[in-house]
């Protein structure tokens, strides 16, 4: 299969998820904000969305023949990267989904700026430090 087909299809499936959440529940599918609400406000809606994420991935791996990627085992790198991701998305009020997909989809200048920032620093980080695998 062409290399871009699954990414395109997967992206459109992600888009369908944001469409459902917006048109039915009136909410923006920003994962970092939903995860924050789940952790701090015990919101049932947020909890079920978060639980759905690994379930959906499991369906893709077990039923659709998508190969399940394993994470590189590097504990100090995991702790550092996880901390920076959490710190950054909280400070910047969003991540790849909230700013990158939903925000740009609403033509929000704020989200376009945020997306350019994290894409740029992600590219610079990989350029200087290489890939971890």
């Amino acid at each position, binding site marked *: 299969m062409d290399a871009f087909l*699954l*990414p*395109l*299809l*997967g*992206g*459109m499936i*992600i*888009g*369908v998820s944001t*469409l459902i959440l*917006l*048109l*039915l529940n*009136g*909410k*923006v*599918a920003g994962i970092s904000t939903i995860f924050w609400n789940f952790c701090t406000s015990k919101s049932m809606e947020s909890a*079920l*969305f978060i639980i*759905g*994420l*690994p*379930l*959906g*991935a499991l*369906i893709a*791996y077990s039923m659709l023949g998508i190969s399940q*990627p394993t*994470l590189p085992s590097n*504990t100090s790198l*995991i702790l550092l*990267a*996880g*901390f*920076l*991701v*959490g*710190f*950054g*998305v*909280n*400070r*910047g*009020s969003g991540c*790849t*989904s909230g*700013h990158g*997909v939903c*925000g*740009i*989809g609403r033509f929000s*200048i*704020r989200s376009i700026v*945020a*997306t350019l920032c*994290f894409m740029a620093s992600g*590219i610079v980080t990989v*350029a200087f*430090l290489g890939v971890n695998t």
Partner: protein
Amino acid sequence: MTTFVALVSGIIFGLGLAVSGMTDTAKVQGFLDLFGNWVPDLMFVMGGALIVSAIAYQIAKKQIRPMLRYSFDLPQNKTIDQKLITGSLIFGVGWGLYGLCPGPALTHVLSQDGLLFVAAMLVGMLVSYQIKKFI
């Protein structure tokens, strides 16, 4: 009903992440490796997601309210401040370091390394939340 919709939406989102390749740290880092062995495939993830989410927003703009609630709950903040910029820059560094952003990280939460990442992410969020009160 809204909680059921949230679950279905979460499942579809996780499915999309896995199908697209965003849960594979090597692919994500390959995509960010613009000045090395760039693998452009994941550009299509954002493209595909953006097309559908932009259509969703255009439909929403014509609605008075969502189907299951009395009003839309959309971000109102339009200010571009140092918090948005420094926060997003820091997020990108963490994303590039390991190749995981919050959604894909949460799909990995059943593995030990994934859980560790999510725990570190929560600590980072809590620290940022405290610091944001001052600067």
